[in-house]
């Protein structure tokens, strides 16, 4: 038995060394965003009265769908911070765990590094085990930092037990997704597959919890992200969800280890079937190739975005009935004359969906550099294929992805919404609200193109920028942030239809910026060395 794990610890240390900067950035960013919240709430809602008013708006099913359940009768600074932030932070902790895990297992395997290591006297399970230890370690460090950081804040409602539980909740969720990823890295036979499946499951768990929290309580109990919101940090302090998380992780990890010991290197358990001897005509061009390589991801994201739209749309009906006759709420939320709560909610949801729809678009564009790093472009560029054609093909796939994702999200929202709402929003309005995000998405794609042309090794900054945009827009609703913060993201300039007026200048302004970025990207890309 111990043979299988031989040298895991050395590999674990090596992994930490290789990743010390990457992991530190993740840990500090996540801890920082958690720790600044209570102080900011203290400033924004100094009196219990303000907080109770906030608690009332949080009873809104749309909010419940987004941030989960909280102890609204006891809405102290601590309870409020935990309620509004723990789920969204936990989602990011989950994404961190997935990305770090795949990077050290499947990606290493694809690049032949695992093969080198397996040739040394290390156990068959050593890589998997070392990576598991490493990602768990990162989560534990994050949990401890968060716990200590909350304890030392001079805010009364931040108790010691709650602080520990907050850290444990974030770490525990991270460990759950570590285990989930460990399993998918065995089942799928590529790093992209493993990442896609894991993030897909994370989104599924999020939606499952949302549906559960709104009505069918039991569903939330089947989602690790449901457990995340059941801890009731800083009020009742439930620890049972943490134990549930650890038990879940243990079982899933055990399964992953068993599968890993069985499968071959570079294979997945989903078997590969024999393929075609001849290429079909639509593969035979740079665009055809770019599209074909991303076909599975494209379809999965399209389906995912539609489902996301449907799941948000399905709560639109409850919104109206919920607010009927509740004068207090109407006073607080209805600032925009002439628009229903549902319409305001649609504006906010479209922002979130617009940014999520940017993910597949950015993945497609950034793949151009991924191909280069894997030295797959060399053979193509030895043919009469120009740099502009190649980059143009990836741009086109990214743009198609952007359109399809955001429109399907809008259609899903409209379709589900119109079956449950008494006074549904028209199809045209909804498509308009979706399309309003296209220019901002183009800017993100253009930025990626520019970086690929100019300084491709930092192209992952596009993700940092998207996360920044998300946080600013998400938090912008909670705090009165300075305009400046949202002015530097393209999403800050989008007209939030149907509540905002459609503004022509920012719409075409963003398109203009995107065009400039793309042209610059194409120019620089045509001039630089290709690495392989």
């Amino acid at each position, binding site marked *: 038995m111990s043979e299988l794990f031989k040298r895991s610890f050395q590999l674990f240390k090596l992994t930490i060394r290789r990743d010390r900067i990457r992991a530190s950035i993740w840990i500090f960013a996540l801890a920082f965003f958690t720790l600044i919240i209570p102080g900011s709430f203290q400033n924004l809602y100094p009196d219990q009265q303000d907080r109770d008013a906030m608690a009332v708006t949080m009873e809104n099913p749309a909010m419940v769908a987004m941030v989960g359940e909280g102890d609204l009768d006891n809405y102290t600074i601590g309870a409020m911070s935990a309620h509004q932030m723990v789920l969204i932070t936990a989602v990011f902790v989950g994404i961190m765990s997935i990305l770090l895990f795949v990077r050290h297992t499947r990606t290493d395997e694809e690049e032949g590094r695992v093969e080198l290591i397996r040739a040394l006297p290390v156990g068959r399970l050593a890589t998997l085990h070392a990576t598991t230890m490493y990602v768990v370690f990162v989560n534990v460090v994050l949990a401890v930092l968060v716990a200590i950081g909350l304890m030392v804040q001079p805010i009364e409602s931040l108790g010691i037990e709650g602080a520990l539980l907050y850290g444990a909740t974030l770490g525990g969720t991270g460990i759950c997704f570590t285990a989930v990823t460990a399993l998918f890295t065995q089942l799928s036979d590529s790093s992209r597959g493993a990442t896609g499946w894991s993030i897909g499951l994370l989104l599924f768990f999020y939606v499952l919890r949302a549906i559960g929290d709104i009505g069918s309580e039991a569903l939330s109990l089947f989602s690790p992200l449901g457990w995340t919101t059941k801890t009731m940090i800083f009020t009742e302090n439930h620890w049972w969800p943490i134990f549930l998380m650890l038990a879940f992780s243990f079982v899933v990890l055990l399964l992953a280890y068993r599968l890993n010991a069985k499968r071959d290197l570079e294979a997945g358990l989903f078997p*590969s079937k024999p393929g*075609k001897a001849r*290429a079909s005509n639509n593969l035979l061009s740079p665009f055809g190739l770019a599209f074909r390589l991303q076909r599975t991801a494209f379809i999965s994201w399209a389906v995912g975005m539609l489902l996301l739209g449907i799941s948000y749309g399905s709560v639109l009906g409850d919104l109206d009935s919920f607010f009927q006759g509740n004068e207090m709420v109407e006073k607080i939320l209805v600032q925009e004359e002439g628009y229903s709560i549902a319409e305001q909610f649609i504006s906010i949801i479209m922002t979130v969906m617009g940014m999520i729809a940017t993910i597949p678009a950015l993945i497609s564009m950034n793949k151009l550099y991924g191909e280069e790093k894997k030295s*797959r472009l060399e053979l193509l560029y030895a043919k009469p294929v120009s740099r502009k054609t190649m980059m143009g093909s990836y741009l086109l796939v990214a743009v198609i992805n952007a359109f399809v994702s955001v429109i399907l999200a809008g259609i899903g929202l409209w379709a589900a919404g119109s079956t449950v709402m008494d006074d549904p929003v028209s199809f045209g309005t909804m498509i308009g609200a979706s399309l309003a995000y296209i220019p901002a998405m183009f800017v993100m794609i253009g930025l990626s193109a520019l970086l690929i042309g100019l300084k491709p090794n930092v192209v992952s900054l596009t993700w940092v920028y998207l996360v920044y945009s998300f946080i600013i827009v998400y938090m912008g609703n909670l705090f009165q942030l300075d305009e400046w913060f949202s002015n530097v993201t393209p999403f800050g300039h989008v007209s939030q239809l149907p509540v905002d007026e459609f503004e022509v200048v920012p719409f075409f302004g963003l398109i203009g910026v995107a065009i400039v970025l793309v042209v610059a990207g194409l120019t620089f890309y045509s001039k630089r*060395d*290709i690495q392989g």
Partner: protein
Amino acid sequence: MEKVVDIKRVTKKFGDFKALDEVDFSVRKGEVFGFIGPNGAGKSTTIRILLGILKATEGQATIFGKDVWNDSMEIHRQIAYVPGDVNLWPNLTGGEVIDLFAKLRGGRQTKRREELLERYKLDPTKKCRTYSKGNRQKVALVSALLSEADLYIFDEPTSGLDPLMEQTFQEDVRNLRQEGKSVLLSSHILSEVEKLCDRVGIIRDGTIIEQGSLEELRHLTRHHVLLETTSSLDGLRDVEGVHDVNQDGNTYRFQVNAEQMDQVIKFASQYPIQKFESAPPTLEDLFMRHYEGTDEVVE
């Protein structure tokens, strides 16, 4: 002779590191040119510059008289390339990749596809992820050989092939030569270069240190000579062109510059010689000298 590839004082820097330092050589029409040198000498870098994938920091390189960077599209219609490390898309089959490459090149689609697949024993229905290194290389080779190009650039094309496939490949290169095609072949397998190439260029630390036909290169290096006599050979060391004399009783081993062999024979003929053996330098001797980086290269 018409020059198909012409590289003039090409320098390539990666940051501060000079990977190529005024590289200068040419490949003539209809010849097989061997490009050899130790690991990291700059062979692949030179080839990538020729392909317009890397941009030369200084100097000029042309193929068919066209600039490799500015006119790469036109050039690429007439060349075929096989890298040493072939990276393909894991979820496409070998057959799909071969069709894709043929279409992208835009050249005539020949009916030799099946024949070549058969010849290289390649199963086109397998996903690239399941191919071994040698099989991935075969995909690129088959695709290159299908292409009816005028210039073939091979960067260590046989590094993953088994000996049988290596022979097949060598036959195909000979056929290309007979058809009047030009070939630039970078390789570490000296016997292969010796068998196939008309001319050879040797690169070390980013500089071409020798260039010429094998005959010419041999001429530049020393023959190994063994002499056995009954008396001692006084004054052998002073004969012009004699180096590294090793004496064991009355047996002498030494090296002679090719041009000065004449003097040595004249000198030795004054003595009662029992045995005279002279071996021309193998390509290997020639390389070893350069690979080891000694200064013994004859000026």
